């Protein structure tokens, strides 16, 4: 049960049931669609980038508790961040949800709530879908990105 409690933390449920920044962003100048064909999860990420800084971002989509909470937490974490920082954060985040070691990642702040995913390899794609979609949005990739 401890693994499950670690995965389904209070903060995950909070962001699943009341996702933050979950709307279309009218002033967005970047956006991309992400899709996980294994489970049908879909997410669209909207960004307003000015002078290399993410001034605002949001998402819309349907997904499981992990993918929804991850998208919600991501939008909170990245508001006001420089593009250059985003890449580093994603690297750290990806390492946290995939690496076997349990080194703390204080730089990730609230995103650490998703650390429990590392015990559930089948769910890593749920946690990273929004991030991959964000990267596609930054590159202005038109084609829907897929976890597969």
């Amino acid at each position, binding site marked *: *049960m401890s693994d499950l409690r670690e995965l*389904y933390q209070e903060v995950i449920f909070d962001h699943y049931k009341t996702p933050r920044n979950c709307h279309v962003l009218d002033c967005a100048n970047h956006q991309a669609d992400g899709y996980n064909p294994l489970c*049908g999860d879909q997410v669209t990420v909207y960004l307003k980038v000015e002078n290399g800084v993410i001034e605002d971002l949001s998402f819309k989509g349907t997904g*499981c*508790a*992990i993918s929804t909470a991850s998208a919600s937490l991501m939008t909170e974490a990245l508001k006001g961040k420089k593009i250059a920082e985003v890449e580093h954060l994603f690297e750290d985040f990806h390492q946290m949800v995939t690496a076997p070691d349990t080194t703390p990642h204080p730089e990730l702040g609230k995103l650490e709530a998703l650390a429990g995913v590392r015990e559930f390899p089948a769910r890593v794609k749920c946690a990273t879908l929004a991030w991959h979609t964000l990267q596609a949005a930054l590159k202005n990739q038109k084609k829907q990105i897929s976890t597969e």
Partner: protein
Amino acid sequence: MNMNANILRHPAAVGPTPELKPGPGAGVIGSRNDFPILQETIGGKPLVYLDNAATTQKPQCVLAAEVAYYSHTNANVHRGVHTLSQRATDDYEAARGKIQRFINAASHKEIIFVRGATEAINLVAQSFARPRLAPGDEILISAMEHHSNIVPWQMVCAQTGAILRVVSINDSGEFEFDSYARLLGPRTRLVAVTHLSNALGSIVPVERVIELAHGRGVPVLVDGAQAISHIGVDVRALDCDFYAFSGHKIYAPTGIGALYGKAALLGAMPPYQGGGDMIRSVTFEKTEYNELPYKFEAGTPNIAGAIGLGTALDYVSAIGITAIAAHERDLLEYATGLAAGIAGLTIVGTAREKASILSFTLDGIHPHDIGTILDHEGVAIRAGHHCAMPVMQRFGIAGTARASFALYNTRAEVDALIAALAKVEEIFRR
């Protein structure tokens, strides 16, 4: 071979896993001891394997047949004069005979070994349908097909200009016969329907489907991937033109399956693939194709798999498909009754004629989350769209959680499923 001809064993004779003994009134068919994998534990909990619609577990006799083949027989078929080659050929052809008898085909020539139902359907699409289709011709499928009975037809439509038409299903997930009768038209060249929906568990009245199609001179392919292990299949009684199934869904290894086709149709079809074994003679000017069924079996086949499939069919026949169906019906009814009592649970697929599959959603809880928590309790189910995305679209959902039953499941395992679902509720509704 640890095969048991007793249809219902006394519960005391069932496996060493005490938690999984059947409840009163529920027999276990065959023996759980016949399936070594059922002794596995998942995170310290007994495995409760309810993902049988994805693939079934294999009895010891099937495992032994594969090992025995590679230990004592391994050689290429239809080629050598040496003893092993003859032995391999005999065993491979004996397996074909077992399939023929299992589905009551008229001749061994009507049984083509393929990788599985998917390849069987692609073979019919490319070798039967494609040469006959003209722009504007129609292929008729149903709204509850697996992707493997949709995509091969879309491909052949793209190649020929033919049109794919789809028979609707009602809110219970039942095949709408009126829609079918309406869509079966003068341009319909083939009907391809599932016998048993993998996403909903609905049984399609294929006898009536075939009768109506034949009345208008239209051939019918039945996708039996799900049905083969749950419903007795008699291709001559059905009078279907093609019947496709996979071995791994009926306790046989993966990578082997069969296509049944009426000899007259198969005989007139061009080969699906070219290569060794499917030829009679080859020169650079001209190749003569082999006779049925070898014309459709290019290259060295999955010999061990075929032998494993034959053994699996022996195993199922010894128990009896009727007894298996009755046992699974009991499990499905028991599970349906208990599931219906769970607040927020909606069963997706409530056809009057159903078999072995319980697909459901829980309000506000994604199927993947259900799957993860159930797995933590040792309960293996499928979560997602089940390779039937149009079915999910029909019901306006992204996916379902699906429990599916096999001959070795017990009522106690259904209880374990229900208890695990309570755990999902406990975690999500806190």
